[in-house]
């Protein structure tokens, strides 16, 4: 996979994780503590699954990409 395609993998992974984080916030507002915590763990596991399956794969193929992502998030709060 070339580096540009790997960047797209990373952006899509973050997009999925942002969606799931939005779901987490919605559930936090509307569920009781125990039910929310059970969902929170599952959502965290889902995000971790995306991270391991996609982010880690892209970073392994292009190690410089991780530094690029960190620098972009540090500056813009987002991978541009």
């Amino acid at each position, binding site marked *: 996979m070339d580096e540009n395609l790997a960047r797209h993998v990373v952006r899509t992974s*973050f997009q999925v*994780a*942002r969606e799931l*984080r*939005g779901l*987490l*916030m919605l559930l*936090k507002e509307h569920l009781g*503590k125990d039910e929310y915590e059970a969902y*929170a*763990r599952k*959502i*965290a*596991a889902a*995000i*971790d699954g995306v*991270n391991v399956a996609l*982010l880690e794969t892209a970073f392994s193929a292009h190690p410089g990409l991780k530094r690029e*992502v*960190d620098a972009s*998030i*540090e500056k813009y*709060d*987002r*991978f541009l």
Partner: protein
Amino acid sequence: MTMRLSLYEQLDRDMLEAHTARLAEERRQRELAELRRELVGAQLDLAIIDLKRNLGIKYDSNQPRVPAGQPEGGRWTAQPGRAASEPTPASIIARARRLNLAARPDRYPMCLDLCYPLLERYQPPWSDRNENDFHR
């Protein structure tokens, strides 16, 4: 003579096995104690977050941020006398790394419990910061 040597050898072997078993048990107890400390720490962090939520302490746009250029630059920081005990992302990440999931995959649920509050921090909807910290 041969028989007595054999008994001594057996005795040595038994003592060695007992010693090895004792060391293994001591190591297991140390790991268990470490695991309990991590769990108590994680429960304490979660209790603090719950307490803050129940007290209605939410996002405050005036809350100070760490100046740019520093390792935690741009992130929210504690306000004096208010949230000083709140776990920082760095402390959560450091604690999660100590769980050493590569060696102890059985600690994964604990890691999820420890780390999902990283996703709960207030960030603008377009921000990737929480997700990136969670990945770390």
